[in-house]
């Protein structure tokens, strides 16, 4: 039984493999996937979505790298652990919240802050996702 169907949006601007990664994580967060569940095989995914098989394999490798799934040779790819909420109280978030407050106090508008943040993000994560 296939427990998950991926929805690939070609126009989203998000790399296809990332869409698979994100949708798997979302299914984990929502409890639609549980530890022990088997992800659809690359063949099943590409037959339904008409995307390149390597894209699926890349997504599964990324999920494996993050420790969320485990590939068992000849058997398939299985969920290893579930996902709780995001680390809402991490120190990084606190620092970012401080920064946002300072930006606001300095009189910056929401769009200015977003543009600044995006540009710094681009600078530090350029070409990310090719790993």
């Amino acid at each position: 039984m296939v427990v998950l169907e991926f929805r690939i949006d070609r126009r989203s601007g998000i790399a296809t493999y990332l869409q698979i990664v994100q949708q798997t994580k979302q299914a984990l967060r929502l409890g639609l996937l549980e530890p022990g569940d088997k992800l659809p095989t690359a063949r099943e995914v590409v037959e339904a979505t008409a995307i390149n098989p390597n894209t699926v394999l890349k997504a599964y490798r990324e999920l494996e790298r993050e420790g969320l799934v485990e590939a068992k040779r000849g058997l398939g790819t299985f969920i290893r652990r579930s996902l709780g909420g995001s680390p809402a109280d991490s120190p990084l978030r606190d620092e970012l919240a401080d920064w946002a407050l300072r930006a606001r106090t300095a009189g910056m508008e929401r769009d200015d802050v977003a543009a600044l943040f995006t540009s710094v993000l681009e600078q530090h994560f350029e070409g990310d996702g090719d790993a």
Partner: protein
Amino acid sequence: MTETVIEAEGLGLRHGRRGAWALRDVSLRLPEGRVCALVGPNGAGKSSLLTLAAGLARPTEGVIRAASRETLAYVAQDKPLYPQLTVGETLRMGHELNPGRWNAETARRIVEGGALDPDARVRSLSGGQRTRLALALALGKRPGLLLLDEPMADLDPLARHQLMGVLMADAAENGTSVVMSSHILTELEGACDHLLLLDGGRLRVFGPVEEVVAAHRLLTGPAAASGGLAAHTVVETRITGRQLIALVRPRGPVDTRTWQTAEPSLEELLLAHLRSPGAPVFAPVASHTAQGVRA
């Protein structure tokens, strides 16, 4: 090291002794197990390259090596089939022409996916049904290399999606290498991991899609700063008022205070190349070595 399924060097094809060159100076190496989009405007040389790879034409100059006749399947643009045969008879022909190789199960599945009546004559089929049957014949052969010339041209969106799914499933299961041509890129985007752009018989861009995209950046900035672009390989610049948009291959860090950078979509990238026939060719040979090492 990955095996190579198509290797061309200095490949050229000319129709007649004084005719125009359909293809000129094409050198490339396609590793095994890849799905390659062959794109370019009408008359770019796509069909010429495919017929040369299929061994159906001899190069006027240069060489091309591809999989052998037994392991290669080629579906021409007009999907030649015998109109007087029925669907069932066509599949039996596939079986008899490919002794020991024929995968009746695959062929049957593809045909049944389109609700094709086995007793229907080929001449009575719609364009989409003929494509389906031609693909069944090609994949039933268990090809190592599948060459498809405009395979999706006469299919409705649903049939297109289904058949692309069938192709990808076969690639996933059997590691089939696929080269398919189209002048509509979006038809192939997402399904292909390699890109080959031909234009005017010349190779313009070739490589793994990820590498091709990663090597290019779309810069937006003030037209007055255009001098700063010289540090990079410029594919195209367009100036509107005081704004300049350029597609470049960065040869070092881009000055992000002057230029807003974005990753181009595959379509933007191809259109920029087609609008600028003089832009340098992108076909990094080194990339293929790296690919081989990773595999």
